[in-house]
């Protein structure tokens, strides 16, 4: 059930009606758990058992950690939880990767292992990280243990973010379960407006560009330099609108149900440095990697060289988290090097020389765009071919300058411009400014949510506001491509 499919919309509508009818908090929680299991089973019912088993293991481990008196036992239960989670992840996601590489080494001696026939369980990378963060937080004493397995199961299976994040931590989600939940008018309005924003990103931009990007990356040796740049740029916009669109929809759906999920993207392509990019891109993953990998590795506490090493290692593993391929490792490595390089530059310049915003942005954006090449390519050979083409030395000569790329680019620039004016430049929106006037005439207001960040929600009925809403809905009806491609991050 993809969020943009008619079945999902029917499922959500039925769930909201049931939740509104039930009212009681405990009953609503059970209803949500059931609905989440149903949602997951619709993806692949065979792995529902695995999901529930993972939740049982971590629930028991966390309770045992709290109950254990000796630190040694606490550590053992934590180790058990981490090993079981990484074991599940390793088996289902990385098994064939390890076999492939093992075979590449041992084939010289005539010894190979047959590849395993394993189907990747949907959302495994996300829910294993979620459960691991829970047990680690309980171990660290930063989070109160959850005493009810049914509550814990609901946290793990919560369907809006189950398949592709945002990666929600127990410290954010579990306290919300104690309050009264369910759809309210305000939540329905703000949730559905966020959902619509996600739909626009996904259907208008990501799905329009997916065919273009697929064409280029399927045959990187065919196209000339200008066309290849178009292909890479198309993927750059596609992956952002696809993933940020999914996150918006997930946050919107959760909001309608009564929960707040953390912000996952904050206009990352506006970043003026690679460090800033990782504070804005897939924020829940980068903060997870920071808190549970970078800091335990030593962070920046053991000297300059070790800081760079830790940054590099964190990003290398972050790359591997995305998929079982050397391409992802390479992508992570490139970002790790850039982060270390930026830290070195900041340290060396001592804040005296700062690059002006525009060249800094251009440099960061170009680097990010180029890094998407290994991320999307099917093989390392393809990556090299595309880099050669981008430099003008590629083997291809076919020309394809897709019009939709430029249209989507304009849409993205407009969206970012509004976002910049509304969220970044003036948080309090002083009167007299064009951006403030536009916001008011559209009948929108800015909402600051401590968990989900800043976003715009409809505030009052205005002619411009209704015009824009109906116009967008009709444009979706007239022109949205119906052969929706699955969200990119589902494969991770």
């Amino acid at each position, binding site marked *: 059930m993809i969020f943009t499919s008619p079945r999902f919309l029917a499922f959500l509508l039925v769930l909201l009606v049931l939740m509104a009818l039930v009212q009681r908090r405990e009953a609503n929680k059970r209803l949500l758990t059931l609905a989440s299991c149903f949602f997951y089973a619709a993806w692949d019912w065979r792995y529902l058992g695995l999901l529930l088993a993972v939740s049982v293991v971590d629930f028991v481990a966390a309770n045992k950690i709290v109950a254990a008196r000796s630190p040694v036992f606490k550590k053992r239960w934590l180790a058990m939880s981490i090993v079981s989670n990484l074991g599940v992840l390793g088996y289902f996601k990385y098994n064939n990767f390890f076999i492939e590489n093992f075979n590449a080494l041992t084939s010289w001696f005539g010894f190979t292992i047959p590849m395993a026939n394993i189907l990747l369980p949907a959302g495994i990378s996300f829910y294993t990280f979620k459960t691991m963060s829970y047990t680690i937080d309980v171990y660290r004493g930063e989070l109160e243990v959850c005493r009810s397995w049914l509550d814990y199961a609901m946290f793990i299976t919560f369907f809006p973010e189950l398949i592709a994040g945002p990666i929600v931590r127990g410290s954010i989600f579990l306290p919300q379960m104690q309050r009264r939940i369910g759809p309210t008018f305000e939540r329905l309005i703000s949730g559905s407006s966020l959902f619509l924003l996600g739909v626009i990103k996904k259907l208008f931009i990501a799905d329009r560009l997916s065919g273009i990007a697929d064409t280029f990356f399927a045959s990187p040796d065919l196209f000339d330099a200008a066309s290849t740049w178009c292909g890479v740029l198309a993927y750059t916009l596609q992956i952002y609108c696809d993933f940020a669109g999914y996150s918006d929809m997930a946050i919107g759906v959760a909001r309608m149900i009564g929960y707040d999920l953390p912000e996952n993207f904050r206009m990352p392509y506006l970043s003026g440095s690679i460090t800033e990019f990782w504070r804005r891109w897939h924020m829940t993953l980068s903060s997870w990697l920071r808190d549970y990998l970078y800091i335990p590795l030593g962070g920046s506490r053991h000297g300059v060289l070790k800081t760079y090493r830790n940054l590099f290692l964190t990003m290398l593993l972050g790359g591997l988290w995305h998929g079982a391929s050397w391409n992802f490792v390479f992508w992570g490595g490139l970002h790790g090097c850039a982060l270390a390089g930026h830290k070195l530059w900041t340290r060396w310049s001592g804040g005296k020389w700062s690059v002006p915003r525009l060249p800094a942005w251009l440099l960061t954006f170009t680097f990010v765009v180029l890094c998407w090449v290994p991320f999307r390519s099917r093989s390392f050979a393809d990556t090299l071919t595309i880099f050669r083409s981008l430099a003008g030395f590629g083997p291809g000569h076919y020309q394809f300058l897709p019009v939709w790329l430029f249209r989507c680019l304009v849409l993205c620039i407009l969206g970012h411009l509004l976002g910049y004016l509304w969220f970044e430049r003036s948080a309090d929106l002083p009167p007299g400014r064009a951006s403030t006037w536009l916001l008011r005439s559209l009948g929108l207001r800015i909402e600051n949510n401590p968990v989900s960040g800043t976003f715009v929600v409809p505030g009052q009925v205005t002619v411009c506001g209704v015009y824009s809403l109906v116009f967008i809905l009709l444009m979706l009806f007239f*022109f949205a491509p119906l052969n929706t491609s699955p969200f990119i991050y589902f494969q991770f």
Partner: protein
Amino acid sequence: MLLKAFVRAAIGAAAAILAANFIADRAHRFDDEINPVLGSVPAAAKFAWDHLEGDGRGYWTSNGVRRATYPAPSEGAPILLVGNSYTEAMQVTDEQHYGHLLEQELRRAGKSIPVLPFGRSGYSVADYIAQAQNIQALFHPKWVVIQVDRRDFEDRAWTKMDSSVARFTRSDQAGDIKVVPQSTPTRTRNSLLRRFSQRFPELFPYHFIYGRILEFTLWVRNERPWFHVLAKPVSASSMTRPDSSYPLDREVALLAEAYHHRLTLLYLPRFDPRNPAAPAADETTIRELAQKNGLRFVSLGASFAQIARSGESPFGFDNTEFNAGHWNRYGHAAAAQLLAADLLNMGL
């Protein structure tokens, strides 16, 4: 207060509907009508345009013929180009259409022969056979060119999905094939909305909205089942193939008989950008069958190497995908050149 909000909402919604309809109408317009002989054809004396795939605009005179004017009898018997959406060619302008270019090529060679493009989206070999008598009686062509690709002989010609097009059938696996003609055309319901649309097409693009609703219906219907892993996989071939093998030889023979062997097959193979000069295997099969039945055969594939050298593909548009979908102006131009050479070569 509530009334004020309601009035604001109504004004906003009405303005949005008008603006969106206007944009939809600018993006795509195509009207059809029921022709007493040919069934559903593009509406006569009307322009149609499509900016969703390609950037085309065309004018249909009458009887589904895409041409600025209908030729006078004094101009002589025409060459008739018959085909499906590739000949209807909503994606290119009249000046880029291979019918127009073919006429120019012939005129340049001293032959003033009118060329009538008659293409209808969804047609296949079954339709060309079913319509042969009507077409010949109506247009009295000097020569007929039929544009085909492999699928026009295969699933498109056998599908039972749509009764508005003809299809092949046969009583049993070994039996001879016959054509089930398209259902008798009936006048479409002249609803209030349709009449309103005819009067104010910019305000209410009826065909566009109707087509889109059909697409949405199909989209909802084609959603994968709830627990898709439990569902039996449906192979693509079982959905389209009526038999274990297509009786291609019989289909070509029937086509040749229907047009009294006075026919050129314009074959559109797929374009392989990596190896543009190599003929596709399916092309060889159809070419051999055409020659066996005394038909002339022109393949667009003959121009692929030249098109590839210029860094283009004969299919696809800059607002769709590279080398996918209908043929573009490069494909049309190449087809016109190849056809002109062949027609002149046969001494028409």
